[in-house]
């Protein structure tokens, strides 16, 4: 229950960051996706069930701010990302920092691929979209995600050390 509340709170924070702060910190049109980072972190830590649920909620939040005719596209993309990364977590229990960054990068591109496929973009549009939107956003998201992953790994290491030292 406590974990659920913590993740609900993190979701609230990520949602606020995504909708209020991100427009002010964009660089040359590139914006980081805090909701994607939350989805990836949740999926890596707690598996596919939590990953796909948080991903679905994050996608729904994005859908609300996206054009109404594409409702469901983001939720599908984020949900799929959460589930797939959850499977990765289950297969490789201890992911160090570098693989996590690779996972985040792939997740970003995969999310965009699912989203643009869902809203009916043709394969002719994809290279242009990847070059002008996906790539800058992915770079920014990965940069922010790397910092957060690093902070989380430090916290985990501290916990492990404390556990090793004993009471």
């Amino acid at each position, binding site marked *: 229950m406590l974990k659920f509340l913590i993740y609900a709170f993190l*979701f609230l924070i990520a949602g606020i960051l995504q909708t209020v702060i991100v427009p002010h910190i964009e660089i040359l049109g590139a914006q980081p996706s805090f909701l994607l980072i939350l989805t990836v972190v949740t999926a890596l830590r707690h598996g596919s069930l939590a990953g*796909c649920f948080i991903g*679905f909620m994050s996608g729904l939040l994005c859908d*609300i701010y996206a054009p109404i005719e*594409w409702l469901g*596209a983001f939720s599908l993309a984020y949900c*799929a990302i959460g*589930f797939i990364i959850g499977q990765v977590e289950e297969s490789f229990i201890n992911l160090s920092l570098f693989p996590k960054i690779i996972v985040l990068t792939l997740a970003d591109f995969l999310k965009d691929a699912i989203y643009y496929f869902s809203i009916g973009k043709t394969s002719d549009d994809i290279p242009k979209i990847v070059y002008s939107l996906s790539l800058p956003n992915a770079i920014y998201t990965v940069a922010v995600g790397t910092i957060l992953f690093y902070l989380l790994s430090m916290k985990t290491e501290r916990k492990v050390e404390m556990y090793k030292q004993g009471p």
Partner: protein
Amino acid sequence: MKLFRYIVRICKWARGSVVFVALVCFSLYMQFIQIKHKQNIADFLLSTVFYLPQSVTSYLIHIGNISEENTKLKKENAELKLKVDLTKEYAIENERLKKLLDFERHWDNFPIFLVQIIGYNPEPYTTTVVVSSGKADSISYGMPVFTTNGLVGKVSKVFNHHSMVQLLSDPNSITSVVSQRSRVLGTVFSRDNGDMQIQISSYSDLVAGDTLVTSGFGGIYPKGIPVGVVSKLEKNNSEVLSYGSIDLLQPIESLEEAFIIRKNADWIVWGEE
């Protein structure tokens, strides 16, 4: 019953996949329904599941907008205040120039030239000011300088495009004056501390409050220009001469424009020019 138990067991074993499939189905359902139903779902989500994030987001955006609007209004307010101040300044200037025009008509006997005060000497007691006209405007040494309020002084040095005016408050300046009421003669001069004084005969009919005007006897100032008001008089009947304090009608601190009368001195003391 056995089948139901079997389904429950599978769901528990693969609950992640089951939830995923359910959520994917719901996402696809949302994509393929009519727009009005999509709108209903979005409204429902905003009023229930996303009510809190939406409220916090709206509140933060609102605060951001208020802050932005506040900055904009402050800027606008500063600009308007500046405009109001400028308008007030123009109104005062307009009033002053109107008075100067009247003054010009009053001094029709002499050609009058309007000058701007462009500098003060930096001494503790101002004794000279710099005006914006010089030889190029036919200004020459000894020309009287006035304002609508009263006498200021005389031109003491002339350059091509500016001149220096020796004020009445200069200790080296002595002006012959006459009481407007009793026509008693006296001389106005300045003490070293900047106080203006009048020297009169001890038996003359001069009282505090009398207005003093130029007598026209000095050869520099024409007759009848207001100089000051007697503020204090200490008569000493045992002495030939008595002294009093006067307040100048034109305070030096508030000088902005002045008139120079193009009237050459009737005579100049040798070596003064």
